[in-house]
């Protein structure tokens, strides 16, 4: 860590941030973030594109009336709204639980480092 600081000694803020970049907590934060956002993105993109693919390939299926005048296609389109609300809710509660406390911890820790360095 000391080497890193010497390399970038021109700017304390950069130095301190750089140090945190290798911090195990930062590595953990990165890992958690990556493991959630990419699978979540893949999920909603696939679910969403399925609507347009089905609209193109199977108009008959999409036009099948499930009850009354409500077609499968319209209900599938409506389910996209529900999906978006649910994914947004899941993401938000996940971020509150798994990201925010860790990010706050790290921020705290770094601010201390920076104050200490400024005092040296």
């Amino acid at each position, binding site marked *: 860590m000391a080497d890193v600081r010497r390399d*970038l000694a021109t*700017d304390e*803020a*950069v130095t301190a*941030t*750089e140090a*945190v*970049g290798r911090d195990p907590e*930062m590595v953990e*934060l*990165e890992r958690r*973030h990556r493991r959630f*956002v990419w699978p*979540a*993105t893949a999920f*909603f*993109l696939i679910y*969403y*594109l399925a*609507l*347009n*693919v089905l*609209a*193109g*390939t199977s*108009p*008959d299926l*999409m*036009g099948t*009336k499930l009850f*009354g*005048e*409500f*077609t499968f*296609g*319209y209900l599938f*389109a*409506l389910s*996209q*709204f529900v*999906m*978006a*609300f649910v*994914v*947004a809710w899941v*993401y*938000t509660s996940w*971020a509150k639980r798994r*990201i*925010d406390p860790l*990010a*706050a911890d*790290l*921020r705290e820790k*770094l*601010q201390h480092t920076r104050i200490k360095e400024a005092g040296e």
Partner: protein
Amino acid sequence: MSDQALSLTLFTVFVLVTLGITIWASRQTKTAADFYAAGRRIHGWQNGVAISGDYMSAASFLGIAGLIALFGYDGFLYSVGWLVAYLTVLILVAELLRNSGKYTMADVLAFRMRQRPVRSAAALSTVGVSIVYLIAQMVGAGALMKLLLGLEGDTAAIGAIVGVGVLMIVYVTFGGMIGTTWVQIVKAILLMAGTVLLSFLVLAKFGFSMNKMFADAATASGKGDAFLAPGLRFDSTIELVSLGLALVLGTAGLPHILIRFYTVPTAQAARRSVNWAIGIIGSFYIMTTFLGFGAAALVGQARIREADEAGNMAGPLLAEVIGGQGTFGGDLFLAFIAAVAFATILAVVAGLTITASSSFAHDFYANVIRRGERDEAAEVKVARMTALVIGAIAIVLASFARGQNVAFLVGLAFAVAASANLPTILFSLYWKRFNTTGAVTGILVGLVGSLLLVVVGPNVMGPEGLILTGSDPLFPLENPGIVSIPLGFLAAWLGTVLSSEKASEERYEELRVRALTGLGAEEAEVAPAKAPART
């Protein structure tokens, strides 16, 4: 007093009251003045409402209703795509962007790249996306004026576009800078109120039975059950996927939406504002069902096409029919809904114009031409000039694009945004090796590629298009997304790996720490623009 004169008078009154409220509201709020500059004190929910105001444009209100009224089910696909797009914003972009940028979209790129090239490229694409988006708004405004004034013929249509376009640009450039955010908020409330009211009255007409509404719409359309299934507007799967990709990925590349996240104090507030936007925008798009199918059943396609070939007037005409065509109630409701549409367009024009002109003034003029030397008066002057020039270009292009559906036109702006901006934003935030060459080639290839494919596509070229109507279009798809978006990503990647430039990995790591923890994010506001380590 004739119907026309009465509608027009009422419309004018509504518009003046709206502008009055906007000006009054903006004077009540001291923070509005520094909203764009340094506020970052906007509450999450306020920002959510403002994002909704920025986002729900003539395309959403006039365009989608028209597409559903004319083509049934296919029109609703726009509503779905434009909502799901907010998941891309929420999960991948909003919070990280909030923590790592300052004023414009280019800030995130400039953080770890060489300033001058990336700022120039980003300013260019911001202006490009905004112009395409503006064209659609002008087309919508022109159709609206044509309906209210009872104009007929091409010259009158062009006149309406020029007249209303000039009016809007003048308002934005000289009067509306401070009030812009309040235009968004007032407009979002008006639009939601108008849409809820209209939807309720439509449902009431059908005895609150959606079944009856669908059945009547299908019958009135003359297409029967096909009206409730896909295929009347789009018959190619590739076209549908291309459109879908543009819609779902475009929002996260729209500069005027992205800069909204700089107005809130924390990443958590950015997250909250997207959630508010998802709630508001989602409810609105679900209600486009009632506007569109209601208009198909109650107004009828013949009348809708007569007012505007592309269906853009379906919503206002629906209001007239609901209020009672030829009665005072009908005139009043038409005037009210037309004023809501006008406020909608004005708010979006304001947001787009200010974003594009401030990006040009801040990213290009101040940072590239003046090399960061501060001269606020000159910067504001450049921003105003840019607003006028962008407005003029949009007006000219809009008079060619009239007769196109507004939602379709905005779909093109989304394709440009997803191709030019999204690859660079995502690589900047997530890819360690990404460098200046990659950023610049990604933006330029995505921008030029998507615009070019539209120009050689069926809407501009070939029998259905504007030029070379004798030959076939060189590119078969209306929306270029499926080709131009991967092209943008590919160019950004190739530019990076082929150049000998070494990425500044220290800066990347600092960006990641800052983006994920918010550490140093506040300082980003006052710290001098520091060039990244040269390599």
